[in-house]
């Protein structure tokens, strides 16, 4: 486990020997890695390598059978997803999800409300707490929508958005939770090149201006090579290699396990 040069800060996320089986099928078998704060890391691997399961384990959608996951130095394995989100670790889904029957603005504002420590009683009391918080959240939401050119759609139902707009909304919504680490599950899937590179420009800018850390799953090797600082390669539930894009490109194990297959796919 080596840290990138010139990065004295401790890793933001540490995954240690994590295991998960579903009915005898080992989806994740001893995966270990660490994410550097402020880096954009790509997670690659053939289909069935366990990437999405790993996302589920990190974000609380499933509890690992064994192993440890630490976020900002604290264990988070087994926490419910909303607690993980409130600690500043947020994810997107492979198939874009939006609250279709709600307006775009409501989609955003819901995410803005889920502040740490907000329990049931506070939720009920919130109505009487006045409009201050409400107004603050609304301003942040509108600003985020503006950033993604969605402000014209604020009053529309999210279900009426195009696939690309949903992708943007998903990222915008994730930012509303004030994350320090964002996990993106195939952010380019189903998105045209122009929009895709625009999304990644936004990611790079957020890393630069807000110091956010990103981990993303991607199949398009060109994108991975151009955009990622660091690449983690999974196969059969375990991390088989990691390093800089150039190092990974040259690693024969990775070529065996993955690159050949990916080339034939694209």
């Amino acid at each position, binding site marked *: 486990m080596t840290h990138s040069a010139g990065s004295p800060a401790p890793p933001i996320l540490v995954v240690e020997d994590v295991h998960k089986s579903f009915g005898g099928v080992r989806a994740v078998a001893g995966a270990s890695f660490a994410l550097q704060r402020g880096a954009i890391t790509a997670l690659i691997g053939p289909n069935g390598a366990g990437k999405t399961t790993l996302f589920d384990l990190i*974000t*609380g*959608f499933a509890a690992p059978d064994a192993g440890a996951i630490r976020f900002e130095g604290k264990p988070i394995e087994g926490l*419910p*997803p*909303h607690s993980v*989100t*409130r600690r500043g670790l*947020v*994810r*997107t*889904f492979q198939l874009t*999800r*939006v*609250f*279709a*029957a*709600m307006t775009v603005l*409501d989609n955003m*504002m*819901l*995410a803005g*409300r*889920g*502040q740490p420590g*907000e*329990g*049931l009683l506070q*939720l*009920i009391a*919130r*109505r009487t707490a006045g409009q201050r918080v409400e107004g603050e959240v609304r301003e942040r939401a509108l600003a985020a929508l503006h950033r993604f050119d969605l402000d014209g759609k604020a009053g529309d*139902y999210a*279900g*009426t958005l195009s*696939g690309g707009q949903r992708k943007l909304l998903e990222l915008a*919504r*994730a930012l509303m*939770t004030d994350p320090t680490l964002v996990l993106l599950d195939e952010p380019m899937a189903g998105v045209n090149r122009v929009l895709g590179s625009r999304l990644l420009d936004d990611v790079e800018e957020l890393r630069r201006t807000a110091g956010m850390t990103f981990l993303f799953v991607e199949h398009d090797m060109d994108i991975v090579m151009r955009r990622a600082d660091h690449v983690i390669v999974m196969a059969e539930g375990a991390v088989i290699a990691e390093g800089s894009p150039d190092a990974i490109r040259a690693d024969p194990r990775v070529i065996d396990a993955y690159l050949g297959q990916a080339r034939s796919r694209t």
Partner: protein
Amino acid sequence: MIEEASAPPSPRWHSRLPPAAWLALVIIAALALLAGVKGPVEAGQATINGLVDAGYVALGAVGLTLIFGILRIINFAHGDFLTLGAYVALMIAASGLPIWLAAALAILVTAAVAAALDKLVWEPMRRMQTSTLQLLLAAIGIALVLRYTIQFFAGSQVRSFGQDILSAVNLGPWHLGTLQLVALLAGIALIVAVGLGLRFTAVGKQMRALSDNMALAEVTGIDTRGAIRLTWIVAGALAAIAGILYAAAVGTINPNFGSLILLSLFTAAVLGGIGNAYGALLGGIVIGLAQEWSTLFLNARWKPAVGFAILILTLLVLPRGIFGRVPART
């Protein structure tokens, strides 16, 4: 699934007019026709009777539709929550407390029972990701346990709040019972409150988010467990209010009354578009009016049959109910 009256535009032919307005036009036209054929006094009285029926059914159906819309549970125990609310209120009132206090305590108790059942039954079942069929069977089991527990403690005989059910409000040639009017107005007010609450409050939006996409709600930072618990508490409280109003206005109840009207509650909920609070109200109105209007032409023995005939006909024309819509998700 918890939807709003003005939900995303639907592609159907009547989409230019909101369903509620469309329905109101049909009802007014039918009323005018009936008044012409049968005379305004009889048609008006049947309409009032139908609205009273609607009030009873709609408030009961709201909790049912909430639970299905948000949690996808077909709650067969909902009728028995009505019974529970009414009986707890009866028991407390029997100890000498004023009726309004007894009712308030009964609402709390019923809500607490609903929350406890979520903790003891529904939450473990959610964790195990049980199938719809297992959830259905669990609901039926809870229904039976509730019913027989009530019967055990309260006996199976007919009971009454002893309120004055004879007093009537006369509006020209028409009349309706004072308590019936109270139940109707309280029912409509509560349904509108639930509808507005779902639409505008933070909690309501979280519930709708939950119903829309549970996983996304989680990543959005919503405490889904808490929101689900709250959904049960609201459904339990609404059921208790419905049960108490029903018992007070109808006059007499026995431990089976909730399970006996459950089918009507389902009919109203499905007819209105399951998952929609206003749908429960409109569904109740359609069923109530159809049944009472039918007595102008048919023997009253056909009333229950007319209700279900309307349900089947409506579902043939509007498969998702009056407020139902084609999901906008892709």
